[in-house]
């Protein structure tokens, strides 16, 4: 979540789903909320019933559009131009909240002389190292402090509160987006100026002291080579409008599926430790604990306490084996030295660098990008341990993948030994979810899992025990790390480790008496506390109490329902819900405010601010941590406490969002013709991952992939279940009527969709819900294809991910599945290797 993290301080939704009901205008962009977050969408419906305007900006007319007041179709991959034009509209029209912008953002900071914008350098920021496809951000710094050096903590930087200085962030931002006009939106996005104006008007009208606008986004912003900057662009817009931290405002990051938020909090990501502490890396000076802490600690904000969080984590990992003499076991942690993202792992498996894979809750044979390469990669492994409820495609690839059915690969040539372990599903085990709004909710076990199915906790617990036995006498550093791990969990009758014990470890405790801490402010850097994930401190504040299991729905913020990190705050940055002087912006939008008589912040939520710090507070010289931030700085995890309209170094592709075309686009970059693609994006080079050239005439159409309500991600939990399979029993591609007419296509016909990665065949669903757009003076057709389908299960179909490429956003390392280019033609049959059982078995009559 670097898009929100870099601008606002934390990589999570700024608000909570229930709060959407308080919105006066909800812009859903880069998301199909009604289909993919139907339960959360109820709050959008509630807002609409109270009179809110709901706007859906999306290439396709979806079930979300059907409920929205306005649907604005735009070309997939052009979102930045639309957002940039909204920013320009807000700045040029004077629609920004001046008081909010001056006090709560870094608009007044002065950018250094060395900085050059993309407008000056034809699409590149200063500092580009072409040979390495990366930026050196030194020239992006906010102007030097009086001492002459760029300040590490940004405090004391020169500024211009009038926002008039040509090098102040506000003016830099203004010039940066000056060419993002409604006409540019028409040319690049294919959105008529009237439609754009209607959206801009609705947003501006509903962004005042008395009204708020919320944005909701999901994977359709994330999955681009410019995805992080799209999200950060939205954060800039919401900061300018004064909507962040206020009820009914903010940026609602809708996660891809259950507990994805939890899996970045306690991460499955290769470059993070729990609680958003960076993974030690050989690419920075992380050789010992002191150097690592010096690099990650920011003296003047919440990150001043990074040493306490880190050392408490090491104490949780290594217990008595972590002590001051051995850097608290820091040396046991592996250090990364490059990119180990999911996409890179596929290449490494394909090249036999990685020889074994534990695959849990994932179906890479369908859900992985360039799935054709992915299946070949699975076939190169020595062993594959896969835990799932069904024999999904990633377990059966060796016998029934399209390559095998087409005769390209013979099963006897695949040496992978597959161990399919039956997995318990949610009601069959105890555990927790951390949902899209950082809310941890506990669930009990309702029924015993069938047969040999077991929970992940059961499996991982035993795996760890076996590994520790296996490496008991090994002399390698890896074995030393395993031996140093604390692993003393009591087990219940079913053999599951006691989750209350694990939750207490995550919550944090005092080493001396094992008593739980009640907040991260009690964590210490001296080894006296242990904490598995500092942001969850307080979830289990007393022995026997699990706040994630509590269910009190009362109050506007439902503070007694589950536990929301950090410190049960539901709306982040809620200091900004009050004016700089501490009074509410308006009575209607009061949320948290300063009570002068009581000398504290009060309101409907847990204040996301030191509770007794008055609005007038000025930090004394030399103050550290939150004490170093003034009383009107709401963004606690950023060095100056301000929303970052301009980011100095936290983003790898520039301090400001810039429009680049998708890596594979039928359209050139209208703004920067010399730079069609994000110059810092990461293409993965492999013979089986061929990439198309910009504007390759062989691939004239835009294609976007997406999900349906009826199925779940790679289909492992839905396509194998008859009740769900029957709702969408077959794969398809949606095609607009004009393109269908040109290809003589009717619904139900077979189409071949082709990219440089290959060809798949699927059924056509001709629908006016997709419409051709006029972009740059020519007609562009957009193909839509759900990516759920595969060759296994009951509901089958060709996999859209056989078409996608391994190419990454430089910040999040996420692929580009939401916009690439393809060719389409009509075919008469599904062809060899077709996963479609109706075609294969000849059962289907034409419907």
């Amino acid at each position, binding site marked *: 979540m670097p898009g929100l993290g870099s601008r606002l301080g934390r990589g999570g939704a700024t608000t909570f789903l229930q709060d959407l009901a308080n919105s006066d205008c909800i812009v859903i962009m880069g998301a199909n909320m009604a289909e993919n977050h*139907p339960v959360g969408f109820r709050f959008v419906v509630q807002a609409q019933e109270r009179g809110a305007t709901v706007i859906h900006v999306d290439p396709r007319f979806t079930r979300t559009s059907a409920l929205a007041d306005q649907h604005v179709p735009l070309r997939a991959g052009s979102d930045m131009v639309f957002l940039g034009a909204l920013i320009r509209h807000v700045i040029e029209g004077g629609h920004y909240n001046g008081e909010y912008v001056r006090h709560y953002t870094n608009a007044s900071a002065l950018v250094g002389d060395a900085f050059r914008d993309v407008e000056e350098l034809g699409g590149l920021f200063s500092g580009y190292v072409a040979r390495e496809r990366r930026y050196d951000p030194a020239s992006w710094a906010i102007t030097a402090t009086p001492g002459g050096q760029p300040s590490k903590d940004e405090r004391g930087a020169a500024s211009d509160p009038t926002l008039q200085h040509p090098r102040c962030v506000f003016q830099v931002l203004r010039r940066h987006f000056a060419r993002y006009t409604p006409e540019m939106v028409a040319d690049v996005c294919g959105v008529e100026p009237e439609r754009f104006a209607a959206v801009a008007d609705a947003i501006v009208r509903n962004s005042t002291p008395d009204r708020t606008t919320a944005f909701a986004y999901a994977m359709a912003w994330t999955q681009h080579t410019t995805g992080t900057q799209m999200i950060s662009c939205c954060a800039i817009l919401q900061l300018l409008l004064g909507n962040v931290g206020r009820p009914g405002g903010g940026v609602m990051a809708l996660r891809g599926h259950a507990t994805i938020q939890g899996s970045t909090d306690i991460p499955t990501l290769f470059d993070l430790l729990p609680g958003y502490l960076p993974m030690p890396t050989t690419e920075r000076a992380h050789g010992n604990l002191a150097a690592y802490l010096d690099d990650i600690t920011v003296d003047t904000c919440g990150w001043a306490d990074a040493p306490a969080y880190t050392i408490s984590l090491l104490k949780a990992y290594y217990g008595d084996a972590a002590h001051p003499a051995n850097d608290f076991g820091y040396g046991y942690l592996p250090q990364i030295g490059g990119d180990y993202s999911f996409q890179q792992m596929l290449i490494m498996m394909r090249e036999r660098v990685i020889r074994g894979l534990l695959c849990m809750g994932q179906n890479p044979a369908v859900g992985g990008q360039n799935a054709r390469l992915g299946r070949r990669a699975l076939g190169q492994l020595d062993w594959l341990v896969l835990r799932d409820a069904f024999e999904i495609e990633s377990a059966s690839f060796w016998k029934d993948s399209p390559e095998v059915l087409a005769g390209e690969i013979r099963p006897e040539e695949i040496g992978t030994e597959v161990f399919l372990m039956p997995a318990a599903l949610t009601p069959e085990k105890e555990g927790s979810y951390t949902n899209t709004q950082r809310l941890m909710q506990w669930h009990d076990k309702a029924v015993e899992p069938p047969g040999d199915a077991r929970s992940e906790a059961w499996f991982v617990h035993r795996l760890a025990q076996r590994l520790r036995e296996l490496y008991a006498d090994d002399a390698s550093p890896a074995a030393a790390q395993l031996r140093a791990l604390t692993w003393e969990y009591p087990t219940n009758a079913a053999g599951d480790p006691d989750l209350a014990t694990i939750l207490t470890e995550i919550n944090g405790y005092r080493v001396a008496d094992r008593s739980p801490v009640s907040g991260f402010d009690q964590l210490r850097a001296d080894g006296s506390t242990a904490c598995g994930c500092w942001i969850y401190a307080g979830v289990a504040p007393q022995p026997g109490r699990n706040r994630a299991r509590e269910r009190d729905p009362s109050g506007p913020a439902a503070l007694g329902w589950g536990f929301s990190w950090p410190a049960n705050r539901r709306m982040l940055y809620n200091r900004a819900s009050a004016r700089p002087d501490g009074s509410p912006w308006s009575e209607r939008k009061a949320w948290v405010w300063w009570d002068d008589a009581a000398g504290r912040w009060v309101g409907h939520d847990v204040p996301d601010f030191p509770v007794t710090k008055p609005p007038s507070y000025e930090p004394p010289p030399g103050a550290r941590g939150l004490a170093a931030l003034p009383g009107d700085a709401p963004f606690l995890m950023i060095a100056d406490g301000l929303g970052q309209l301009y980011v100095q170094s936290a983003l790898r592709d520039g301090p400001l969002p810039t429009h680049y075309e998708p890596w594979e686009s039928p359209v050139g970059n209208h703004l920067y013709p010399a730079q069609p693609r994000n110059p810092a994006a990461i293409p993965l080079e492999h013979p089986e991952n061929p990439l198309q050239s910009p504007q390759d005439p062989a691939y004239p159409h835009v294609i976007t992939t997406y999900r349906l309500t009826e199925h779940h991600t790679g289909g492992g939990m839905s396509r194998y279940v008859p009740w769900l399979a029957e709702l969408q029993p077959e794969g398809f591609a949606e095609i607009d009527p004009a393109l269908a007419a040109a290809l003589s296509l009717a619904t139900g016909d077979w189409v071949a969709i082709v990219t440089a990665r290959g060809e798949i065949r699927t059924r056509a669903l001709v629908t006016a819900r997709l419409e051709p757009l006029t972009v740059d003076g020519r007609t562009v057709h957009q193909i839509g294809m759900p990516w759920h389908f595969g060759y296994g299960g009951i509901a089958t179909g060709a996999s859209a991910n056989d078409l996608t490429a391994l190419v990454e956003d430089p910040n999040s390392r996420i692929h580009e599945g939401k916009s690439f280019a393809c060719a389409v033609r009509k075919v008469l049959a599904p062809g060899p290797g077709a996963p479609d059982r109706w075609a294969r078995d000849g059962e289907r009559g034409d419907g």
Partner: protein
Amino acid sequence: MADSAIAFSAKPNFRSEAVGFLTDATLCIGCKACEVACKQWNDLPADNLGPMTGMSYDNTIALGAETWRHVAFIERTADESAIGSPVTWLMLSDVCKHCVNAACMEACPTGAIIRTEFDSVYIQPDICNGCGYCIPACPFGVPQLSAAGAAQKCTMCYDRLRGGLEPACAKACPTESIRFGFVEELYASGVARIAQLRERDVDARLYGDRMLGGTGAIGGLNALFVLNDAPETFNLPAAPDLPQRIVPRAFAATAAAALVLCAAAIAAMQERS
């Protein structure tokens, strides 16, 4: 039920114990959770495992013996000259109407179809002999014969009602498009909803209401619908009625036709002789 809940002079005379559904098309997001919850609770098999129908996102097509909730998807191209969406996509979850006077019940010769203490219309599976008379009798096409040869339809989750739970479909609906409650109250909120929607220029109507369209001799529906288009758009009959009410007229017409034919025959024979 408090009298204040109903302030309409022409209110239908729902039975006071009657419970039912108010299904609102303007709140439906087409998620089909109602279909799945229904099948799961009632342990009904999947009955359409492919191929895809190609009819928008509707792969269920109709209510049936094993499908007691059906979400219809109506995808249309509107006026293309207007700024805004070129298409509309209407969604509505259809269900048995649990008629106040139920044609299926009148047609059932075995007494298998009964009216429950909740005023719902219930087919007793152990009594039904599979004669199928209820099938053509229903003006909505709701009951159908299962593969085993028994007539089946929505039970309004009779077993859940007995246990004090709302029907599975209403429980699962995320947007309160399906509401369960006392029909008198649902009717009042339906009427209020229509007024509210009309203020917003939505072409709204309450289906199953006597005042707005009517249900003839059926006398009202315990499953009401808020529609944002004509009933036919959702494949609902515009003026449903008890088919039994046509019987006297049909009988008279048949008798008249027989008389005319007899007279013609006699006349012809007289001419010959």
